[in-house]
């Protein structure tokens, strides 16, 4: 570590010439050592200041005003936006939708990802090919995906309903129902991310020492027993990581519900907001209704909720994995 602090001995690139002015060089070099690290990390802090810290604080500030877009002298109203927000049924509805879609996507996704990883960890022929195949949806554009799934789940001519009818079942109006729309959006999310998460879990699985499995095998533990007693507990850090990243992403979900609307371009999240998420509501409030103060209050509440749920997740995942270990 100290190496870098040492000042290079004077001069001599090729060891041939002696430098003309060693002192200047010496000083320049010392200055270089001192200042360079700060220069190298500066871009991050500049950008974070502009796009991370400033917006976070300024959002808090704006949320205290009745601030309409283009308003030069917005009124300070203190916490009124928050009071209004907590009494706003549309906000609670949006929050419920968000949590519902989030649970419907992340829970099955994690379970399937772990099982899929277990399948992929076998000695497959053409292992890389399978992995690439599983990861394919990750390459899809999110918007393209939203449009494709809106089409597949279309009420009249959608393929999914066509299949249901072929099987003799009733068609479902996927966009009209609350639960059905959540399920359809969750399927969209799962389709894109399950393979990706499976690979992350697979990597962790392969890092588990083989001796553990061999020892358990000798003790007579079957496949299921070894999976629950060895594999799962040792996957804990990875599962925590995957859960937290999918929480942060899931609670901000925007693109999928926006594109799923039967009225394209709408921000309502369905005719009775049945699948409007918080970010969609935030977008509608800010950029369709131009109530920037109120929208900022929404942003801050969502931020706090995300942090809280991430923490809860962290503890829950830890607890679950700890129980399995016994």
């Amino acid at each position, binding site marked *: *570590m100290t*190496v*870098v602090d*040492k000042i*290079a*001995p004077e001069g001599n690139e090729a060891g041939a010439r002696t430098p003309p002015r060693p002192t200047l060089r010496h000083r320049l070099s010392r200055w270089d050592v*001192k200042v*360079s*690290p*700060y220069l*190298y*990390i500066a*871009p*991050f802090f500049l950008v*974070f200041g*502009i*796009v*991370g810290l400033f*917006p*976070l604080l*300024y*959002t808090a500030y*704006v949320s205290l005003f009745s601030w309409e877009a283009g308003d030069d002298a917005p009124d300070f109203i203190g916490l009124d936006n928050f009071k209004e927000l907590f009494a706003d049924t549309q906000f609670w509805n949006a929050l419920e939708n968000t949590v519902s879609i989030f649970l419907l996507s992340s829970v099955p996704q994690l379970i399937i990802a772990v099982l899929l990883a277990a*399948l*992929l*960890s*076998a000695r*497959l022929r053409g292992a890389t090919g*399978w992995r690439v*195949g*599983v990861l*394919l949806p990750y*390459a*899809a*554009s999110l*918007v*393209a*995906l939203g*449009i*494709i799934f809106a*089409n*597949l789940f279309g009420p009249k001519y959608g393929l999914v309903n066509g299949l249901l009818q072929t099987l003799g079942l009733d068609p479902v109006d996927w966009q009209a129902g609350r639960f059905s729309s959540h399920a359809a959006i969750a399927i969209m999310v799962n389709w894109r991310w399950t393979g990706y998460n499976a*690979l992350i879990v697979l*990597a*962790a699985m*392969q890092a588990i020492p*083989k001796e553990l499995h061999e020892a358990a095998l000798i003790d007579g533990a079957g496949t299921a027993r070894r999976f629950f007693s060895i594999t799962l507990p040792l996957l804990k850090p*990875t599962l925590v*990581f995957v859960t937290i990243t999918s929480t942060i992403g899931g609670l*901000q979900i*925007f693109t999928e519900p926006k594109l799923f609307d039967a009225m*394209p*371009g709408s921000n309502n999240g369905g005719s009775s907001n049945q699948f409007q998420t918080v*970010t969609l509501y935030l*977008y509608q409030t*800010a*950029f369709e209704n131009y109530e*920037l103060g109120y929208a*900022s209050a929404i*942003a801050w509440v969502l931020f706090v909720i995300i942090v809280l749920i991430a923490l809860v997740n962290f503890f829950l995942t830890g607890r679950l994995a700890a129980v399995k270990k016994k």
Partner: protein
Amino acid sequence: MTKPRRSTYIVLTIFVLGSLFPFYWSFLVASRDSGMLTERVPPFLPGGNFFANAARVFDTVPFWKALANSLLVSGTVTLTTVLFSSLAGFAFAKLRFRGRNGLFVFIVITLAVPTQLGIIPLFMAMSEFGWAGGLQAVIVPNLVTAFGVFWMRQYTVDAVPYELIEAARVDGCSMIRIFWNVCLPAVRPAAAILAMFTFMTSWNDFLWPLVVLDAGNPTVQLALEKLQSGYYVDYSLVLAGTTLATIPILIVFLLLGRQIVAGIMQGAVKG
């Protein structure tokens, strides 16, 4: 490490077919006319209308411009993110300076801040700078990321031996030359993975460009959304657009699939 049974292959095959199906479906619709959607039993093979539908996409939205915009945005963002993240990663991993640990912890904490939620003040700021509507409004906020710095720092710690840096300093190298000639070559694999991630994320970004860009100056994602948001949705047209937008990235993905998979798996172990 068990030997796979036949059922393993069957399940995986079903899964991969499921992964492929929406792509195939969108191409199927894109290559026919919208009438196919009203048929009770949809056809299984593509028709011959794809190029006609694609041509209509070019008439409806400025697709080429959108493609150029997306390439410019994602390309620039990828380049700067990799460069700045590698520089910062080098500093945090190998250089000693006051406040190093504190600043790095700070960066790790910022990973948890969802920047999406700051769109309102960010939009106000961009309007103030007169950047709203311009591509710089999409590029500048993404010049470097906390994830990038974190990722490059983790890799640099192991990949660049101190002895090498010392040797370079003895030879009279400046810091920036050490970075360029010693560090950067050693961290190339991690930089490549970061580049891939950054490009994909930037390419797929939707909310922020939707907020800050004009309809006449879209990225690919915005152009696609525009295609769909007419009063009447012409699915052959719209899905021709999604196919056009997906094909290039799908090709890249299939060509680099092996590295991408390795990168994601490595990221999991390191992160």
